[in-house]
């Protein structure tokens, strides 16, 4: 055999072996993740979880998210757009996965704002101004107070409501449920209890469209 043929053959074989092993591994992994989510379906939604959209919708997206996570920030308008395009067919359940330093503080602020029916506005504002308060080397969740003040929120009430020990319980519960469901990264989405086969905008859109097609 010629030398260059030998090398080309080796490259082709190795790449083919890599690709098929990767394919087998991921499909097996996806199946086991799907079953795992099915077995732990009771961990998906808790009564305390914030919901957006039509509560009677037949497609439910559960999102484990962190206000300090950049990818969550990028997915936020995308999910809203999906909900707008399929008005009334989707509802979104927000679960917390505050993995970043200082994120639990932000979650408490958000939950306190929820008491004033300002959850969505404050969440949008957190994502918008994320670069100001959520630098990974120097997270300053306190900097968000200035932003809130600037937008004339009732800060004194948020500060008071944040002290409620029930909020820590919500965070702990969400973290525990996230761990059970294998939501180790943010954002993690489940659409009608099904995890995404791989991560990305298209995969989420496809999963949502499949569920809409199956339920409407």
């Amino acid at each position, binding site marked *: 055999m010629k030398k260059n043929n*030998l090398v080309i053959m080796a490259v082709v074989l*190795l790449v083919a072996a890599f690709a098929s092993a990767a394919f087998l591994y*991921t499909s097996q992994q996806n199946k086991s993740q799907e079953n795992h989510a099915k077995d732990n379906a009771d961990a998906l939604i808790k009564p305390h979880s914030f919901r957006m959209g039509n509560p009677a919708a037949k497609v439910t997206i559960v999102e484990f998210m962190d206000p300090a996570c950049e990818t969550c920030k990028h997915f936020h308008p995308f999910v809203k757009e999906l909900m707008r395009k399929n008005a009334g067919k989707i509802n979104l359940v927000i679960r917390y996965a505050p993995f970043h330093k200082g994120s639990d503080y932000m979650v408490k602020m958000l939950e306190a704002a929820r008491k004033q029916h300002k959850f969505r506005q404050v969440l949008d504002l957190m994502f918008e101004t994320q670069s100001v308060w959520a630098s990974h080397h120097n997270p300053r969740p306190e900097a968000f107070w200035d932003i809130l003040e600037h937008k004339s929120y009732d800060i004194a009430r948020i500060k008071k409501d944040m002290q409620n020990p029930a909020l820590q319980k919500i965070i702990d519960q969400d973290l525990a449920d996230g761990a059970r469901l294998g939501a180790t990264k943010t954002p993690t989405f489940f659409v009608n209890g099904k995890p995404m086969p791989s991560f990305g905008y298209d995969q989420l859109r496809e999963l949502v469209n499949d569920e809409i097609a199956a339920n409407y």
Partner: protein
Amino acid sequence: MNHKTQAIDTNWLLIFSCWLIATISTLGSLFFSEVMELVPCILCWYQRIFMFPLVIILLVALFPLDKNVVRYALPITAIGLLFTVYHCLLFFGFIPENLQPCSQGVSCADDSMVLFGFLPIPLLSLVSYMIMITLLLKTRK
């Protein structure tokens, strides 16, 4: 003349085999990190740093055969081997836990390093590096 260019000599085969080991190891480590999503620990990273370039320099040396590649590949492989030996000593507990340089972040010595329940990744790396060094040393000037 024609016969001479067609024939594959021992040195070429040795370097080719070495390249094959380096490529399999590289693809394997990429499989662990990119497909299985195991985060490489710091010692794994150093072993990868000295493994990945071998795929390129050994391949270049095959066409046409350049035996001088041993001079360049051997030091790289030797340093990689040092990291691997250190990692194995750590993994099998010959170096105590509190001396390990990677207690923060991803542990270099926990169970995520073991494939199929019995095959530790550092051991695979050790075998690769030892085979490669042997092959390179066997290449005659």
